[in-house]
């Protein structure tokens, strides 16, 4: 990703350069309004950048057509405000698999295995509308990883959840990333969550990457003073 800018009414994101490595778990932290969600949306190609270039495996991303769809299908984004379809839990998880034309048998195997992983086998035929917040979020993540994307984008996946569900979801994310070598880019408002699960931490403030580095370094001896203040919870904004 090179010199990518996003301008709405004003510039909300300017990234000089960001290089992401396959199979790594990234924790994106920063105050609200920093541009974290915008970054995920641009990577997922839901919004076009205003200028600059995004490269996937060294190739410039196609802006439209089948090329774009193919690329998008290598990724999944779980939104800050997740929306489950008004359908059964099972069909929600199967959605991305059906969109990709997986055969019935394969869909069944994967969905059932995921239901087992998120501990919701009994709730397979429940309507998604009737789930609790934690259950809904587990389904949203299962739905996003069902088709084993190369890149998993998570926008505050555990906001407003209880500790039990947070732990479960964090375990799921780590397991997915390790087993399937999925690159995870997780935005979180919770610096401790980043500390727990990220390999690399990216600190964004006012639309710019202030600092990026190995989690340990960011938390023990960051180069930047504002990074230090932020991870220590002392930043005033």
């Amino acid at each position, binding site marked *: 990703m090179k010199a990518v800018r996003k301008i709405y009414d004003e510039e909300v994101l300017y990234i000089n350069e960001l290089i992401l490595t396959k199979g790594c778990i990234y924790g994106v932290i920063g105050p609200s309004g920093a541009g974290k969600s915008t970054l995920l949306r641009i990577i*997922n190609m*839901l919004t076009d950048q205003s200028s600059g270039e995004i490269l996937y495996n060294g190739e410039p991303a196609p802006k439209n057509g089948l090329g774009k*769809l193919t690329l*998008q*299908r290598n*990724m*999944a*984004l*779980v*939104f800050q*405000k*997740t*929306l489950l*379809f*008004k359908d059964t839990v099972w069909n929600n998880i199967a*959605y*991305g698999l059906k*969109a*990709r034309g997986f055969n019935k048998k394969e869909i069944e195997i994967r969905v059932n295995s995921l239901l087992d992983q998120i501990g919701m086998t009994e709730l397979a035929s429940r309507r998604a*509308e009737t789930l609790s917040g934690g259950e809904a979020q587990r389904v949203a993540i299962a*739905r*996003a990883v069902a*088709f084993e994307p190369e890149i998993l984008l998570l926008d505050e996946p555990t906001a407003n959840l209880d500790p039990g569900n947070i732990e479960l979801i964090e375990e799921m994310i780590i397991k997915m990333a390790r087993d399937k070598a999925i690159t995870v880019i997780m935005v979180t408002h919770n610096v401790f969550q980043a500390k727990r699960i990220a390999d690399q931490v990216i600190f964004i403030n006012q639309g710019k990457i202030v600092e990026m580095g190995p989690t340990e370094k960011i938390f023990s001896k960051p180069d930047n003073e504002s990074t230090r203040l932020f991870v220590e919870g002392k930043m005033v904004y």
Partner: protein
Amino acid sequence: MSRLYEGLLEALRLIISFDPDLLTIVLLSLRVSITAILLATLIGVPIGTLLGLKEEKKTGFFNKIIFTFMGMPPVVAGLIIFLILSRQGPLGVLGLLYTPSAMIIAQVFLASPIVIGLTMVGIRAKGGEIEETARSLGAGSALAAWTVVKESRYAILGAVITGFSRVVAEVGAVMIVGGNIEGHTRVMTTAIVLETRKGNFELAIGLGIILLMISFIVNSVLYTIQKGGKKN
């Protein structure tokens, strides 16, 4: 008072005995309005979905046109379709005036803006979010649009039912383009007008009761749907 009472009794007798005249009228009414609403759905849902997914700013002009057409007086719609279908009109050669087809066209013209407008409003509420969720999971444009429609099914059904209840009860348009010809283009509303004028209150009241029942059923369904939609 006794005239109303006797009329009511006779009307009930006509309904219970499936009086052939009454039945012909009711069935034609339903055939015309159901066909019209099906066509209006085919036209209105895709357009409404498309507009609903666009930003409100960009569809401002369309919005105004659609909302104007939604409130179009049926007689005006009838007049417009009459002029189009009449012998000198652009579609005069088809010879459709004073046929059930003309009535269907007039009702499609009345119902489509309602279906478009209400679908648009319903989709605008959450359509963008649904579309993005679908896309983030790998849906192409067609699947994403279909998902939006499926997820907005309560709003869309509501739009269709509202359109139906409007056309089945309207009298001005079908009167003008259909001509209220007995056994051919006479529907419930136009029959009520005629029979009342003639003093045949039994048939008029009987049709009125049936129209009310249809309205009751339709609105009960609508109410249930909207309750279901809110719950989710």
